[in-house]
């Protein structure tokens, strides 16, 4: 079924089209939710809420961009809204200096798996993780992140810098990445 047919079917509230859309995008979107959420159950709750919004707001999609990007934005906003309901999350955003994360040194296969990267991201404190997800993976600017999370733009920048440094350390300690002699060698080191 083409994406256009799925869209038309969803606009008609046809269950088969909705199921088709769900099957097509739910695995990716659950991975997105999983990076934000505390655990898998929370991630599935976010996904369910997000897809309900997707289907109920389908008429607002105007074909101006990629359909997947539109769905992804709804899912990300749903995740952020869920996180903001958590008091611990709001407090963590104000912590400029995060506590050190205990990371065990492990030997890992030479081929880096996506799952390991994601799991390393999930080790980060929730504030760091959220900003890193939004900036480095989802592609939001610091200004947009500041608006979404109700923080200062400078806070977002500093959080990201520290999150990135912490993730590098984790990946190195876990021997997922090799410490590069130059920046350009990062990719070579892991491939």
């Amino acid at each position: 079924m083409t994406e256009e047919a799925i869209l038309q079917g969803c606009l008609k509230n046809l269950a088969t089209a909705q199921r088709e859309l769900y099957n097509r995008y739910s695995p990716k979107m659950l991975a997105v939710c999983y990076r934000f959420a505390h655990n898998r159950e929370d991630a599935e709750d976010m996904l369910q809420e997000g897809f309900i919004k997707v289907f109920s707001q389908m008429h607002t999609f105007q074909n101006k961009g990629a359909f997947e990007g539109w769905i992804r934005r709804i899912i990300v906003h749903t995740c952020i809204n869920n996180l903001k309901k958590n008091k611990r999350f709001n407090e963590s955003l104000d912590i400029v200096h995060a506590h050190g994360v205990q990371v065990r040194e492990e030997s890992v296969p030479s081929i880096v798996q996506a799952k390991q990267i994601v799991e390393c991201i999930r080790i980060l404190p929730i504030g760091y993780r959220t900003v890193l997800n939004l900036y480095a993976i989802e592609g939001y600017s610091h200004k947009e992140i500041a608006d979404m999370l109700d923080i200062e733009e400078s806070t977002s920048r500093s959080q990201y810098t520290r999150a990135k440094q912490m993730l590098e350390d984790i990946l190195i300690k876990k021997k997922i990445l090799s410490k590069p002699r130059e920046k350009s060698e990062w990719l070579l080191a892991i491939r």
Partner: protein
Amino acid sequence: MKESNFYSDEFEQLIREKTEQYKLYPSENVWKGVHNSLHTKRKWFIGSMAFLVTGILFFSGKELLAPSHPLSRKLAAAGTVSTDSFSNDPARSGQPEDNSHANFVRLHPVNSASASGRHPYAADFAITISHPVVSQPDLSELLSHAVQLPGEAPSLIGSNGTPAVAMDKAPENPHPEPGLLDSWLVRNAPENQAAHRTADASRNNAETLRETTENTRETAEAVGSKEAGRDLDADDPYLRGVIDNLSARGTQRIHTDGEIARNASTHQGSVAGKIKDAEGAAKAAVDVIGEKSDLSSANWLHDYAVYSLPPSPSRGRLFLQLILAPTANYRNLSGGMVASSKQLGGPVASVRPGDVQSWVDRAPALGFEFGANVLYRVTRNLTIKGGLQFDYSRYRMLAYTSSGQQQQQTANYRSPLGNTIFMDSINAQPPTPSQNPNISGNSVQATLYNDYYQLSAPLGFDLRVLGNERLQFNIGATLQPSYLLNTDSYVLSSDYTSYTKEPTAFRRWNLSAGVEAFLSYQTGPIRWQVGPEFRYQIFSTYLSSSPYPISENLKGYGIKIGITKPLP
């Protein structure tokens, strides 16, 4: 969005690439949650069931708590019981208020004179009934209908001159009790009547009273002609009880009449012997006349109200039945002899060996049916019925959705009818490469529901096997011509691998057969029934004229709950 130098940082690019590759497959519950919140079908199902059950409970509760009694209903509608007729106002009745008469019924003889110009003896002519045999409304009903009958109707008229039965107060116990009429007759025996009237009788002469009595009778007959045309529901069990009671009392009273008459004669002779003047003799004559008048009223009740009622129409033949049945629905699949590619005019999926039912995972799902029937009781044990019914049948299927290459493969399939392209990616079996080399990639288990909405007109019979009028065990069978309202259910592909939707393959008109066994119980006018039923769709869901090789026959098991009420 992102700053332009985002990808300048290769670390970020690495993170982004790797996370994009990562996928997680949600559990089926996530989709169920999404689906349930988007589609209100289930809510509609629950809502309609709740509405039906509430309606049935309300209807049955209303009938049980306040049964629609024909006599009461008639009285209320026609206003037979007027405030004038049953006035408790002593000024109107011309009698002093006497609490000891609280349960008495007074039958005032007709006085042609107006209330203001009543003859002084008219007040003494009241018949007072303590503990009436017939309840106030029923007696009124009986008398109002009885006066239409030929013969001499009793002289019953209100004390204010209104032609009606005057009753001071409704009795506490409206139901007739055996022996009460006897009591009434004894209380109104000539000796007692005479004793009450002795003082006043001396001031009047017998001729005047005789004239009064004659006038009374004439007026009553006139009243009777006005009241003609009002029917009586002699079929009512309660009224029948009243009538039977009256009949029994009346028979007994016939024997008493002679004795009363003899007593009256004796009394007359006694008075004549003791009172030597003309006034005494006149009083005795008045007593006899009054007694005869009273007896005339009682005789009339016996003769006409009991035996001369119009024949009742045949009753208990027609009934209205409301039924509701939660059902578990299933289907039988058969066939599978796929048509050749030449017949279909295009490429077809390969033929699968073996029974089609072994290739698909199916499970029953809950549905319901509700409707109304009109029942006609042919004999004491056999009832035929016909009506209209709505059936909601559904079953579920286990399927597997897939993405990637599988979509491209399934898109190349032709429809079983050869005119529609399969575009689904819903598979009937797990798409493992060993079973289907065309399939690769990830798959997700899914549950599909096939819903069928049908209108049907069941025609059949019920047969009483065991039991009495109150509790019965019955069996029944129906044939149900049905019309399918929706054609958007899934159709299994001819190679049993995929599900798709093919509205043109469905048969709209069909025929189903149903059998049932039930226990029924009578409470008042309502009969309740509950029991299992089985329904089978005789013809395939799909058109036999189409080249689609698979046949599907729906079947359902249910618990039918019904209430039956006699039709007027």
